[in-house]
């Protein structure tokens, strides 16, 4: 650990975890307030009071749509930010994110399979109940798909030790699953509509149910990842060194991958494929808070939450009452900032 401590000391931390927590907490709160106030008619400063008054004209809109939507966007972003930080630490690669390792393509394939099955069933006689099953099944399919995609990537790469092989495998699995996805949609065009909104990411219909799922996911994954952060620190030194420290690498890595798949699968199943949050959030955090994992994992989650929430607020307010696809905005915001960082000072690995 002395090496890590040394590297942390020489990395000249720009802020302390405590200050980072205050800033991210403040931004999250600001974002949530903005989320409550912005909607189909632009900005309403008085919308906040409607939240507490059941008789208020805007109560349903604020309490049933804006509140869960804003909270859900933050949670989905947090899960993606956390997943991205875990992936980059686990695979020792600053390019790793949930999407590069096949989990998102897998989740998307799962969703499309269920949509197509539902469409085919609806064409038959017993449509209604299968529709219900399909709706409940989307979450499970996205989760199973995310896990399956990553498992396939790891299988093709023969484990996570060889970074280049891993990235290549992830790209191949992503391409294969996307192609399969396209094939299904060609055969069952009814699934196309559902896929379209899934691919662009959609925060519009996040309700309290979704918030429950996402919150549960964060409650399960964040403490687990926090506990395993020492493993990620040890992995910075390489697998052999980590092993020599007495870590049970296969077991720990499996636990981390399970957390990664759970976080990605849940976020993607509720909000669709939202680009860039998982890649950018850890970079933003590392820039301000270099050093060992742990605090930076949680900060990545909070940063992802703030980023997606900001994108959601912009998506609904820029051309209200119309909306922009939220995934487009995260790509523009996150990607733009990443490019600026690259231009300014290069990225910390």
């Amino acid at each position, binding site marked *: 650990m002395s090496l890590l401590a040394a590297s942390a000391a020489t990395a000249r931390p720009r802020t302390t975890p405590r200050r980072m927590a205050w800033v991210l907490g403040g931004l999250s709160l600001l974002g949530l307030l903005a989320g409550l106030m912005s909607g189909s008619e632009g900005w309403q400063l*008085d919308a906040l009071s409607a939240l507490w008054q059941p008789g208020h004209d*805007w109560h349903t809109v604020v309490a*049933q749509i804006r509140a869960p939507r804003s909270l859900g966007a933050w949670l989905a972003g947090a899960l993606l930010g956390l997943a991205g930080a875990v992936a980059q630490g686990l695979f020792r690669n600053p390019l790793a994110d949930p999407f590069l390792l096949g989990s998102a393509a897998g989740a998307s394939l799962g969703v499309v399979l269920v949509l197509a099955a539902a*469409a085919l069933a*609806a064409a038959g006689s017993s449509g209604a109940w299968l529709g219900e099953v399909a709706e409940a099944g989307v979450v499970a399919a996205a989760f199973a798909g995310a896990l399956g995609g990553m498992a396939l990537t790891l299988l093709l790469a023969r484990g996570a030790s060889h970074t280049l092989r891993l990235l290549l495998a992830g790209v191949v699995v992503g391409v294969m699953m996307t192609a399969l996805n396209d094939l299904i949609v060609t055969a069952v065009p009814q699934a196309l509509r559902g896929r*379209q909104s899934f691919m662009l990411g*959609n925060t*519009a219909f996040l*309700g309290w149910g979704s918030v429950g799922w996402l919150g549960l996911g964060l409650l399960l994954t964040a403490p687990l990842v926090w506990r395993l952060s020492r493993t990620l620190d040890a992995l910075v030194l390489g697998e052999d060194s980590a092993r020599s420290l007495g870590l049970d690498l296969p077991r720990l890595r499996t636990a981390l991958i399970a957390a990664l798949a759970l976080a990605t699968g849940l976020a993607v199943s509720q909000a669709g494929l939202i680009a860039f949050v998982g890649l950018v959030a850890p970079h933003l955090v590392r820039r301000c808070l270099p050093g060992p994992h742990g605090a930076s994992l949680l900060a990545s989650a909070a940063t992802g939450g703030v980023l997606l929430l900001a994108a959601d607020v912009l998506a609904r307010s820029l051309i209200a009452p119309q909306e*922009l696809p939220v995934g487009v905005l995260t790509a523009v915001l996150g990607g733009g900032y990443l490019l600026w960082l690259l231009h300014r000072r290069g990225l910390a690995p």
Partner: protein
Amino acid sequence: MSGGAARWLERWSRRGRRAAAGFVLLAALAGLGLAQAAQTDLRAESVNPSVRDDRGHSLRFDAPPQRVVTLLPSLTEAWCAVGGCARLVGTDRYSNWPASVLDLPKLGGLDDAQVEGIVALRPDLVLAARSTRAVGRLEALGLRVLAFDSDNHAQVRATLFALARVLGDEARGAAAWQATQAQMAQAAQRVPAALRGGSVYFEVDASPYAAGAASFLGQTLHLLQLRNIAGPALGPFPKLNPEFVLRAQPQVVMAAARNTRQMPKRPGWGALQALQQGRVCAFDADTYELVTRPGPRLGEAALALADCLAQLPLPGLPQATPAGPAR
């Protein structure tokens, strides 16, 4: 040239299809010595009609084409509506009306039209949507292609007239369009008085995307005297904020049945009065396909919409919150 003549010229040239004839006519009227040539041109046109598509490309037909491929369901329907059905040798994979086209070879869709299969059928005319990717390739291979848009009623009408012209009988286009219009008028009559002037939300995708007033569906709804909550300023198919729909409280909700089943479960949408009071047109797959197809069956689609409206529980119309803010 005087200002008046310039305005004439401008107005004429706006009518893309007749621009050439317009020029000729104007020249003749101005007595520029081209009268003879103009007459010759017009006479030649009536024998060998030249048909201009929505790209501005003109094709001249010495005789009506005998082997025709259509690459869009609404074009298949339009071609059949003007009496060309017997000349069809192939269609895209989604064309399914009239029933006679079901047995024809299926040649892919907008993005994956089977160029080889189309060429093998040796068509002397291909009818395609302007957005069909294969159009350029087919023309490069020497096929004659007419490409049309069908975004609104005017374009559907223009397509019917153009296709009838291809067959050398413009009256068929007029007849087909008149039949469509008659059905639309009939449909408007069937709309219950209590719903006329009422507001409507037509969902085309669960994201949610609406059929706005500027779309062909919006035009049909307007003819049925319904007020679209997605006004013309929002464009043909706007992606709406779900709370906008809730605030607008449309008196009638229309969508495919697979969407309407989900609506009450969407956050906040349980408070939509139209859902609570059952003023929902939930279309089965066939009807939904009919009403979302911008072709000669627009009238039939309007009748289907009107029939649904006629069956809805009539509102004691608690005059719904206007679409505007009520802060």
